[in-house]
C-alpha cells in the first residue's frame, strides 16, 4: 500500500500575487496611451455657392498675409511672427467697449506653398493675443482667471472680446 502524506490546512502563498498584478499593470501601462489631444480649435465657414462680399472698414480689419518665403505682412507692413501678438493685443483692447459690429476681425491669408508650421505659429499668436486680452479683462473686472469664470461672466467675456478669425482661401499660383 502506498501511503499518502496528508497535510493539514493547505495554504497557498499570496506573496507573489503582488508581483503578478504588477506585471499586469506594467502590461497595461505599456500598451495603452494616455493621449491628450491638444490643438487649436477653429470653425470653418459653411460652404456657400457664391462668395458674398461684405464691406468692412479698414479700422476693423487686421489682415495677415504669409507668403511662401515665410514673410509676414500685417496690414501691409512686414512683421516678425512673434510680434504679431503684441501688435494685436493693443488693437483688441481698444475695441472692447465698441459695439459688436465694430470688433476686430483677423484675416489670415496664405499662399499655396506656405509652410504649414508658419501658418500655425501665426494662428497661435493671434489666439494668444485674444486670450491675453480676455485674461486681462477677466482679471480686471471679475478678479479671477479666464479659466475660472462662471457662465455669466464667460458670456460677457465672449460678448466683449469675440474671437473672429477668418481663414481666407489661398491665392492660386500665378
Amino acid at each position, binding site marked *: 500500500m502506498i501511503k499518502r502524506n496528508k497535510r493539514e490546512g493547505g495554504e497557498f502563498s499570496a506573496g507573489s500575487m503582488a508581483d503578478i498584478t504588477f506585471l499586469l499593470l506594467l502590461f497595461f501601462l505599456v500598451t495603452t496611451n494616455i493621449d491628450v*489631444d491638444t*490643438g487649436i480649435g477653429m470653425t470653418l*465657414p459653411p460652404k456657400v455657392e457664391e462668395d458674398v462680399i461684405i464691406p468692412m472698414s479698414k479700422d476693423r480689419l487686421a489682415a495677415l498675409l504669409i507668403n511662401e518665403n515665410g514673410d509676414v505682412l500685417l496690414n501691409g507692413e512686414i512683421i516678425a511672427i512673434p510680434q504679431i501678438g503684441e501688435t494685436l493685443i493693443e488693437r483688441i483692447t481698444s475695441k472692447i467697449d465698441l459695439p459688436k459690429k465694430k470688433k476686430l476681425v483677423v484675416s489670415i491669408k496664405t499662399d499655396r506653398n*506656405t509652410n504649414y508650421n508658419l*501658418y500655425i505659429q501665426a494662428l497661435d499668436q493671434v489666439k494668444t493675443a485674444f486670450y491675453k486680452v480676455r485674461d486681462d479683462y477677466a482679471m480686471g473686472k471679475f478678479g479671477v482667471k479666464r479659466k475660472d469664470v462662471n457662465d455669466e461672466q464667460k458670456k460677457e467675456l465672449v460678448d466683449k472680446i469675440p474671437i473672429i478669425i477668418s*481663414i481666407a482661401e489661398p491665392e492660386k499660383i500665378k
Partner: protein
Amino acid sequence: MKFEKKRAGAKQEIPTSSMPDIIFMLLLFFMVATTLREQEIFVKFTLPEGKAIEKIENKRLVSYIWVGETEKIQIDDNIVKVNAVKKIMYDKRVVLPNVIVSLRVDKNSRMGLVTDIQQQLREADALRINYSAMPKP
C-alpha cells in the same frame, strides 16, 4: 536609575496581504483612464508646436485626419486621396453630427494641401476642426 526600553511583544511586520488589492486598484484606474492603441498610423509626421492650445474635452467626437511628410492623407485605416475626403467625412457626420475633425498635419506640409482638405470638409459640412499641436515646452 535604570533606563529600560519597553519593547512591544508584537511582531514587527507590515501586513502585505492587501498589496495585491492596492495594485489591482491601480491597474483598474489605468484600464479605465487610458485607451488602447486602436489605430495604426501609416504616415510619418511631426506636429507643430503652439501656446494657445486647448484640450479637446470630448474625445468621442473626434475623428482624425493624418497628413504625413510625403503628403499622404490617412483617414481611419486607409490612405486616401484628397477628393475622397468629402465622402468619408460626410458619412462620418451623418453618424455623428457634431464631429470634431482633428487635423494631424506634419509641420512641413504646404498650405495648399491643408486648404484642399478644408475645402473638402466644408463641402461635407464638417466645420468643427482642430489643428493638432503640441504644447510648447
